[in-house]
């Protein structure tokens, strides 16, 4: 708000601050306020640089008199020409129903500050503003009592169909998202969803490979256990066709299954060495394919 005029300027009369402490009250205009109007005032308090303001001494928003409220208090602190400047923006509201144009008083208040010399009080003086009536004292006589009243403003028609549709749409989208999250996390009612054993295994194997290069025998055993879990019983190579019949999502991996069981057979029962990077890579690929098919299924 641009301050159009300076209403008052007070040079504090305290001897110690004679040259340093000033209080200036600015308001947009000193007159022309009607009932209900907001009155914006700015009070600039200039003090020595070392002064500290006690914020408890600031005026509190609330009723000041029967017809004047303080609505809002804002404080900004800056430095100006080596002095400290406190800029108080005060918003009052006038409730005085004036019958003629007259001045009313905006009450003053005290600010407590502390300086090098001790605690001091700065008085912000009362100031006055002019208020005006909205209507003449004796209006022209009307035939109907209702003629003294102004008609109500017509209410605007608000079409609620669009916001309602948007609300329903957003609600449905939120529910769908919730359902997807619940399914992903196997929250009720999706707790019956098959556990994604191969996805967990793929993560586990890739972590293990990253950590210590991975032991092929241990990795193969963990794949066996995951297959057993998916099968609901121990799965041997002879059971694979039946397993694939019951889990058609893995049918694409028939060759990988055969290769896996052959590798496992040679390693665990045929006495072959387990140091084989290619086999480890094939195993990791097999598990990631299993995980992919599991999610697809």
């Amino acid at each position, binding site marked *: 708000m641009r301050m159009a005029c300076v209403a008052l300027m007070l040079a504090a009369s305290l001897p110690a601050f004679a040259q340093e402490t000033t209080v200036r009250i600015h308001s947009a205009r000193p007159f022309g306020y009607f009932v209900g109007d907001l009155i914006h005032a700015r009070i600039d308090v200039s003090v020595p640089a070392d002064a500290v303001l006690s914020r408890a001494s600031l005026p509190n928003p609330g009723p000041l008199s029967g017809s004047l409220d303080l609505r809002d208090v804002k404080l900004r602190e800056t430095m100006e020409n080596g002095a400290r400047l406190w800029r108080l923006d005060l918003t009052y509201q006038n409730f005085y129903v004036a019958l003629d144009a007259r001045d009313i008083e905006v009450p003053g208040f005290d600010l407590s500050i502390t300086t090098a010399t001790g605690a001091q009080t700065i008085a912000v003086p009362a100031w006055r503003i002019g208020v005006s009536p909205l209507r003449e004292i004796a209006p022209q006589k009307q035939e109907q009592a209702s003629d003294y009243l102004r008609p109500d403003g017509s209410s605007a028609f608000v079409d609620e169909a669009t916001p309602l549709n948007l609300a329903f749409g957003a609600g449905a989208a939120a529910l769908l998202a919730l359902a997807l999250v619940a399914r992903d996390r196997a929250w009720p009612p999706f707790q019956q969803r098959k556990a994604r054993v191969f996805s967990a295994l793929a993560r586990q194997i890739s972590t293990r490979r990253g950590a210590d290069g991975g032991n092929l025998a241990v990795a193969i055993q963990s794949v066996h256990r995951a297959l057993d879990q998916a099968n609901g019983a121990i799965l*041997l190579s002879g059971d694979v066709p039946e397993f694939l019949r019951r889990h058609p999502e893995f049918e694409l991996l028939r060759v990988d299954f055969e290769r896996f069981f052959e590798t496992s057979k040679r390693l665990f*029962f*045929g006495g072959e060495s387990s140091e084989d990077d290619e086999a480890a890579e094939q195993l990791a690929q097999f598990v990631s394919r299993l995980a992919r098919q599991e999610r697809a299924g």
Partner: protein
Amino acid sequence: MFGALGQALNETLHVVQKLSDWRARALEFEQEIQKAVIGQARVVRLVTICIFARGHVLIEGDVGVGKTTLLRAVSRALGGDFARVEGTVDMMPSDILYHTYLGEDGRPRVDPSELLRHAETLPVFFFNEINRARPQVHSLLLRLMAERSVSAFNRVHHFPYLNVFADRNMVEREETFELPAAARDRFFMEILMAAPDDEEARRRLVFDPAFHDTETLLERVSPGTLDYRETPAVARAIQTHVRSSEALERYVLNLWRALVDPSSAGVSLPDVDLDSLVKGGASPRGLAALVRAARVRAWLEGRDYLIPEDVRDVFIEVMAHRIFVDPIHALRSDDIVKRLCRAAFDATPVP
């Protein structure tokens, strides 16, 4: 030192080559049997395993499914003799060993029975309806099976190539003597022989006249495809040649534990209290038989090492008849034991 090493290597190579040749002949043997017995590939495979594991067989099957035909075909393909006795309630052990009759001169004679006469050349001895015979007869049979010898005419007769095949009558219960646990445990396998499931095989068995005449049917089987006199040596070679890894040995021991103490191994059956189910059986002899049979299967599959499928494939046949359950389940023990075996497999992780 290198000379000794080279000699050992040569011997190993020789054994490998010999086993490979014998495997081809064993497969040919199976083919020959299946010329006479159709739709019974699994039974033929199990009988082949028993022959190369030198194990005696309990055959369970309905009447008229071809048990005798199968055994005669086996006997013919092995090139040896065939002896058969029928178990009856009044049979005594001497009836198996001696042939008593009146001679032309009217005087009683005692000659060796068919079994004794063929002792040295008998690979197949078929004891039909063994549970009709009395325990005295079972006892003689146990000795014959365990030691491959009997005492008769005041001397010991040896049966170096003998495989006993016994059939149980499962229809009647009157006048039968159920085999005691010890007798059942000495049978290497119990093979179930049912009518074939295959429609075409069923049709041929019923409508093809070739299957109505056993004698002409058996002529289809080439005699002596295998030489029964070599089977003991081959059986020994198989057992030493087929390796078992540590993982497989651990697996078999875990299976054993699952059978003997099912609850501790996490095995469960829906309507059976497993804590008190198994009362006996699953003996070390049974487990040794299991591994013997699995090794022969591995050899027939062309491998020189055991895999879990070998064990599983023969498990029910080798183990089920050796597991004795609480008498409360006696009437349906066969079914429960088979379910227990399957549950043990489902709960024992491998490798």
